[in-house]
């Protein structure tokens, strides 16, 4: 399922505005995979991700009149998705009780194994859970920008538009997010990986 071209998106939006509401389904089909991928990466739960994606598309539909076409529809949609997921992550972080020290104590060995043998895929359930536990210790802003960049492959310019900030701010936030994660993981890297 690939995203449509900006011209195609604009045409569909025009048709929706002129009363052909059902054509919104075409836009949803185009961007369903991207939005679901983002939500799954951030929320690490298929059901929660699907619920979040539904809310995001519903919000986008309700706000379609405010879409002025200055940015791409995909970027505009990412903005809605980013805000929605950030809210969910913030809520989750408020309920969080596990400290980083506890995680390191309990799963330090597995973490080291995971990082020192990258050819070992993170496909097993235990590894997936460990990855999620580690990422849940990142600030929502950091997790969001890293996911948008690394998983969704957004460029700096697209990131700036989706997050509503400048390209310089994107660079700074990305650097801080990467430093934060690497700082947390610094003890688990092997010495010879240069």
């Amino acid at each position: 399922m690939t995203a449509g071209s900006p011209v195609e998106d604009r045409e569909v939006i025009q048709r929706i505005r002129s009363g052909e509401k059902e054509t919104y389904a075409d836009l949803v089909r185009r961007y369903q995979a991207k939005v679901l991928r983002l939500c799954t990466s951030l929320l690490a739960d298929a059901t929660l991700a699907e619920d979040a994606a539904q809310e995001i598309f519903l919000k986008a539909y309700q706000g379609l009149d405010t879409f002025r076409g200055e940015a791409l529809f995909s970027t505009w949609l990412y903005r809605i998705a980013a805000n929605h997921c950030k809210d969910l992550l913030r809520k989750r972080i408020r309920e969080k009780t596990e400290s980083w020290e506890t995680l390191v104590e309990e799963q330090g060995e597995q973490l080291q194994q995971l990082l020192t043998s990258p050819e070992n895929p993170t496909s097993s359930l235990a590894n997936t859970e460990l990855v999620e536990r580690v990422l849940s210790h990142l600030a929502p802003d950091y997790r969001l920008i890293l996911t948008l960049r690394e998983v969704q492959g957004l460029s700096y310019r697209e990131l700036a538009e989706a997050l509503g900030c400048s390209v310089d701010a994107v660079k700074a936030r990305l650097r801080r997010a990467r430093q934060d994660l690497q700082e947390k993981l610094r003890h688990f890297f092997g010495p010879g990986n240069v």
Partner: protein
Amino acid sequence: MGHTAMQDKLFALYDGELTGAVRQEIETHLASCRACRQLYTRWQQTAQVFFRPPHVQVAEAFVHQLMERIAVVERPHRVRRWPVAVRWLVPAVGLAGLLLLFVRPGRGALSIETLLLGEGQGSEQTQLLLASEPPTTEQMFGVMMEGQP
């Protein structure tokens, strides 16, 4: 170039944001600087482990469910209105009930005395008041002037 600026350039190289001479310059630096190479490699490794694109399953059911929700949201909210005859019925029945309280068929109209005194069990004061003659103008004048009837 400062440490932070160099880190930004390294990450920009990793992100594919550099082109031309700048890209070449950073690549040359990376080949010769062990610390920068370590930073670059470690991030590459971290991203490979922690940011793998998840497998997602797109389904038409998702689109249908969403379009149904949109249809519900779009549906105009209707206020249920009763027919005119029914709308008048409630106050009419209420009014009729109230009238029945005052006018009891077969027992004549309910007097104010009956209402106040019930079955003759009202206060003595009220009974006296109702039994007494209305005051004359002179008596009223006397009360106003002297405070005595």
